[in-house]
């Protein structure tokens, strides 16, 4: 590791097999970031620019928390870094903060909000749930994963969510079924009423959640994670079709009205740089975040 790298890892924790949490020293980012935004990390001289959502921040300590899944060459290399070591670059906060944060308080207090986190999606959902509670609003939250071992941030989330529902595809923990079945159960069987869903997870999960919430007539916000390069609006790699418009996820998002997102196009664009190696790893790791039927990882 080069000596002049300044973004030091102050804490590292393995949350699950191949999912890691790190606190990274980045005072400028920590000072001005909000839930919903993301950073770009470049590990070393030759590394890619890797976008990761901000999972938490400590303005006083000047640290930002990231949670990532080691699924390809870059994130695997990142997972080998230890406390005390440092990354070359750490830029942010990028993108817009969650729209909840700027919503008039009166409007927000009337909203019944359900957060839906799929796999590593717990990381970006966490700071929003925490922010809501800290500002006096109760919210419900679903964490879904393939099996018990892949449920992350449960304890932390329990501290802030009014009701926390865990669901696993194989029923090894909590409710048995994918997140959509859990949403249906809450709404249809448990008499829950929501007027806003915030769903963050693998793109394929967000797609199916949006199909369901459209049927249920519940507005839904999703956080899009397309391929990015610069993260500042310069390259257009992250472009998405939102309604009739083309938007850049990095500067116009990453959060959008899920009912306007063209998910099929976005899923297709996500395939562009998928290395055969990366796909294989993803399958071998049993697609920790890709627990939804219909995901291309389970096909072939």
């Amino acid at each position, binding site marked *: 590791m080069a000596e002049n790298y300044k973004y030091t890892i102050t804490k590292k924790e393995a949350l699950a097999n191949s999912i890691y949490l790190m606190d990274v020293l980045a005072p400028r980012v920590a000072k001005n970031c909000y839930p919903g935004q993301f950073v770009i990390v470049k590990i070393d001289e*030759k590394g890619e620019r890797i976008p990761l959502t901000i999972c938490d921040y400590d303005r006083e300590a000047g640290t930002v928390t990231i949670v990532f899944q080691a699924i390809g060459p870059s994130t695997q290399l990142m997972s080998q870094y230890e406390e005390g070591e440092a990354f070359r670059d750490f830029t942010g*906060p990028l993108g817009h903060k969650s729209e909840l944060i700027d919503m008039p308080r009166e409007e927000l207090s009337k909203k019944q909000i359900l957060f839906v986190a799929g796999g590593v999606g717990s990381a970006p959902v966490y700071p929003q749930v925490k922010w809501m509670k800290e500002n006096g609003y109760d919210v419900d939250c679903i964490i879904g994963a393939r099996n018990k071992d892949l449920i992350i941030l449960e304890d932390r989330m329990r501290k802030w969510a009014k009701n926390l529902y865990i669901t696993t595809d194989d029923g090894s923990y909590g409710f048995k079924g994918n997140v959509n079945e859990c949403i249906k159960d809450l709404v249809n069987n448990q008499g829950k009423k929501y007027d806003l869903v915030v769903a963050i997870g693998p793109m394929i999960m967000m797609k199916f959640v949006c199909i369901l919430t459209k049927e249920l007539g519940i507005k839904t916000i999703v956080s899009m994670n397309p391929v990015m390069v610069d993260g500042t609006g310069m390259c257009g790699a992250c472009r998405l079709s939102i309604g009739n418009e083309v938007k850049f996820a990095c500067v116009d998002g990453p959060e959008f009205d899920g009912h306007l997102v063209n998910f099929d196009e976005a899923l297709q664009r996500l395939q562009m740089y998928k290395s055969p190696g990366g796909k294989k790893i993803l399958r071998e790791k049993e697609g920790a975040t890709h627990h939804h039927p219909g995901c291309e990882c389970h096909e072939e």
Partner: protein
Amino acid sequence: MDVLKKVPVREQDPKVRATNFEEVCYGYNLEEAQAEASRCIQCKNPKCVGGCPVNIDIPGFIKEITNGDIEKAFKVIGQYSALPAVCGRVCPQESQCEERCIRGIKGDPVSIGKLERFTADWAREHNIKPEMPKEKNGRKVAVIGAGPAGLTCAGDLAKLGYDVTIFEALHEPGGVLVYGIPEFRLPKETVVKAEIENVKALGVKIETNVVIGKSTTIDELMEEEGFEAVFIGSGAGLPKFMGIPGENANGVFSANEYLTRNNLMKAFDKSYDTPIIAGKKVAVVGGGNVAMDAARTALRLGAEVYIVYRRGEAELPARVEEVHHAKEEGIIFKLLTNPKEILVNEDGWVCGMRCVEMELGEPDESGRRRPVEKKDSEFVLELDTVIMSLGTSPNPLISSTTEGLEVNRHKCIVADEETGMSSREGVFAGGDAVTGAATVILAMGAGKKAAAGIDRYLKSK
């Protein structure tokens, strides 16, 4: 030697260079430079100087080359320009200094750009550093963006004694010089980095990974961090697309993405992690310098490449030298051709482009003849990759987060042409952020004027 002709410059063989990323043009050696320099007749009233946006004392530095005192030639240029090795390579000399050279009336103009490049390269190879600033005055100025405008402004302010910090959004300073213009025209390590080191040697600090408008704002810099003035040199980096069907298919890129992957992220070098989809049959839509750079990059990555441009050869906005190089290397020009639709296969990838032939009609408001579609002339170009190079516009990140900063309808920051002063007190701007996409030397000229403007402003405060 024929005094009417330029001393020819040595170049890499087109067949060889089409397969590598090494510099196309080798530049002059001392002997060639002196021969070329001797063609300058040292005009009393040198017209060439008026053609240079930073008014380099051209006969002054050329005389020193003739005398064999290259170090002195470098010092002469250094009074006007902080990036001579860059400008000597990428300035559109043929329409600036050289266009006005008296030698050009009968014969070739003096090769001013190549002489400037020679001088800067020689100085670098002989480890000659620019002159150090005089005393520091301790007053802090922030510069946003480490492109040519920002680097020039910062360098000039440092020379005047200011304590200057450049904030750059990307992980490397240089702006378009590092992410846009390819290695084969402008070597990054030897040329760009060295000139940035020279700016740093003047005492300028560069903080990378800071996106103004996100990581911090102009207001915070001025109110909390003690910067008394700010210069915005954030460029015009936002890519445009055509809005035709199929444009979001896999295999369609903006020139910015393609070039950034290759230049900034060094995708052509397999030891770097960022991938690039090279393509086998590539169309680059557009006819400017950026289009030529994207086309020649794709060619070097192994593709067969078309330039698709809706006007004719004479209207190509790219530098003549670049078009010539592109043709030599085997780029196929489909002129008077306009894309209508990008065709997509069942996997979501580009498989072709439906185009229409054009002919030139009446002149439009830009004075160029307007291209109009030829009837029944549609055809399909089979392709697997399309690169859109339709120009760029300024990024609204800064203007949207800085209250009171006036922009025009093209999102360009409004600034006084002479002083660089914007509508916000203490905030100055210049370069592509103000003019829209232009040239390196115009951006440098604007950075220079703004440095003087900031100096006057702070002295009177």
